[in-house]
C-alpha cells in the first residue's frame, strides 16, 4: 500500500499558512499554532481555478485586439497593440529588448493559460501522468506570472515621461484588460492545488 505515503491518508493536515502539521482530518478545525482554518486540500481548488482561468481567457482577447497605448505626435494619433509595440522594437534594431517584451507579454500569458488549463484537465480526469514533471510545470507557471506586469509598469513610466504638449503617450483600453489577465492568472495559479495531481496517481 504505497498510497499510504500521503499525509492525508495517515490522518495529518498541514496548515497552508504556517506549515504546522496537525494530526486531524476534521475539515472544520483550526491550526493550533496560527489559528487559520485547516484544509487538507485548497478548498474548491478546481472550481475556483476554472472560474479564474475562463475570465482571464476572455479578457485576453480584448487585451490583444485593442491598443495598449497611443503615441500622439503633433495631433496625429498612432495606436499600438501589444504585438505592434514588439514589432516596432524589433524593426528598430532592439532585438533583445523586443524578445524580452515578447516573452513577458505574449509567450508567458498565453502559455500560462494553456498550462493551467492542462493542469485542470489532468486533475479533473485523473490522467496517469508523470506527476513530478507536472508539478515542475506548475512551479514554473506560478513563478513566471508576475513578470508579465512588465508591460503595465512600462506604460505607467512612458505615460508620465512622454507628456509635453505636442508629443504624448496615452494608455489604451487594452492596458486594463491585460492587467486583469495577469492578476487573474496569478490568482488561478495560487488557487490550484498541485497535491491534486498526486492524489490521482495509482502507481506511485
Amino acid at each position, binding site marked *: 500500500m504505497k498510497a499510504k505515503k500521503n499525509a492525508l491518508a495517515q490522518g495529518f493536515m498541514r496548515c497552508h499558512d*504556517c506549515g504546522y502539521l496537525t494530526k486531524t482530518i476534521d475539515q472544520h478545525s483550526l491550526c493550533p499554532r496560527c489559528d487559520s482554518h485547516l484544509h487538507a486540500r485548497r478548498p474548491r481548488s478546481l472550481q475556483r481555478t476554472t472560474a479564474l482561468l475562463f475570465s482571464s481567457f476572455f479578457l485576453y482577447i480584448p487585451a490583444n485586439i485593442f491598443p495598449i497605448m497611443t503615441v500622439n505626435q503633433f495631433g496625429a494619433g498612432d495606436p499600438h497593440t501589444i504585438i505592434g509595440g514588439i514589432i516596432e522594437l524589433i524593426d528598430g534594431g532592439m532585438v533583445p529588448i523586443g524578445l524580452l517584451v515578447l516573452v513577458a507579454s505574449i509567450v508567458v500569458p498565453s502559455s500560462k493559460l494553456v498550462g493551467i488549463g492542462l493542469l485542470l484537465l489532468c486533475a479533473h480526469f485523473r490522467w496517469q501522468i508523470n506527476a513530478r514533471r507536472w508539478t515542475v510545470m506548475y512551479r514554473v507557471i506560478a513563478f513566471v506570472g508576475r513578470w508579465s506586469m512588465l508591460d503595465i509598469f512600462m506604460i505607467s513610466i512612458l505615460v508620465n515621461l512622454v507628456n509635453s504638449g505636442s508629443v504624448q503617450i496615452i*494608455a489604451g483600453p487594452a492596458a486594463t484588460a491585460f492587467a486583469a489577465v495577469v492578476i487573474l492568472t496569478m490568482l488561478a495559479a495560487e488557487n490550484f492545488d498541485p497535491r491534486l495531481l498526486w492524489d490521482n496517481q495509482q502507481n506511485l
Partner: protein
Amino acid sequence: MHSTHYDACPECDLLLRAAQPNIGEKAHCPRCGFLLSRPRKQSIERTFALSIAGFISFFPANLLPMMGITLLGNANTGILMSGVIALFNEGMIAVAIVVFLASILFPLLHICLSLLISGHLYFNRPHRHLIKWMHCMHHLDEWVMLEVYMLSIIVACVKLMALAPLEFGWGLYAFIALIIITTLLSSNLDEALFWQRIDQLGKENQP
C-alpha cells in the same frame, strides 16, 4: 507518533520525517523535489537589519526623481508615484491602482511587517498581533513586484532613448538599492524559523 517529528510536503502531501538540515544545506522533497527548508545563518538578525535598511532606502527611492527627459524643450521628471498619477488622470483608474499597490504600497507594507516581526523576535518581545502580521506578510510576498518594475524601467529607457536624451537621478540609484535589499530580505527570511520562534514566545509568556 507525535506530529512535530513529521512534516508533509506542501506540494505533493508526502509524509516525511522532519528534516533538520544544517546552515548552508537544503532539504528537498524526495518525491516532487520541492524545497522544504533552507536554514539561513542569523536569519532573524539579518532580516531585522535588512528591514531597517529597506525602510530607510524606501523614502529616497520614492521621493527623489528617478529619470528625466527633455522633449521639445519641455523637461519632465518621473518618480514612482507620478506614473500612478498620470495613469489616474487619463482615466485608467484600475491600472493606476494596480501599479500603486504592486510598486508602492505592498513593498512598503512588506518591509514594515518584516521590520515589526523581526524586531519583536530579535528583542524577544511577544505581541498578540505577531501571528496576524505573519499571515499578512505571507500573502503579500507574491504581490511585491519591485524587480519587475526595474525591468520595465530598462525597457522604457530603451524605448525613450530613440526619442530624446535621458538623465538619471538619485531616485533611481536609491530604487536599485531598495531592490537589492528586498531581494536579500526575502532570501534571508526563514519563515519556518519565524513561526517556531513566535510559537515559543507565545508559550513562554503564557501565565
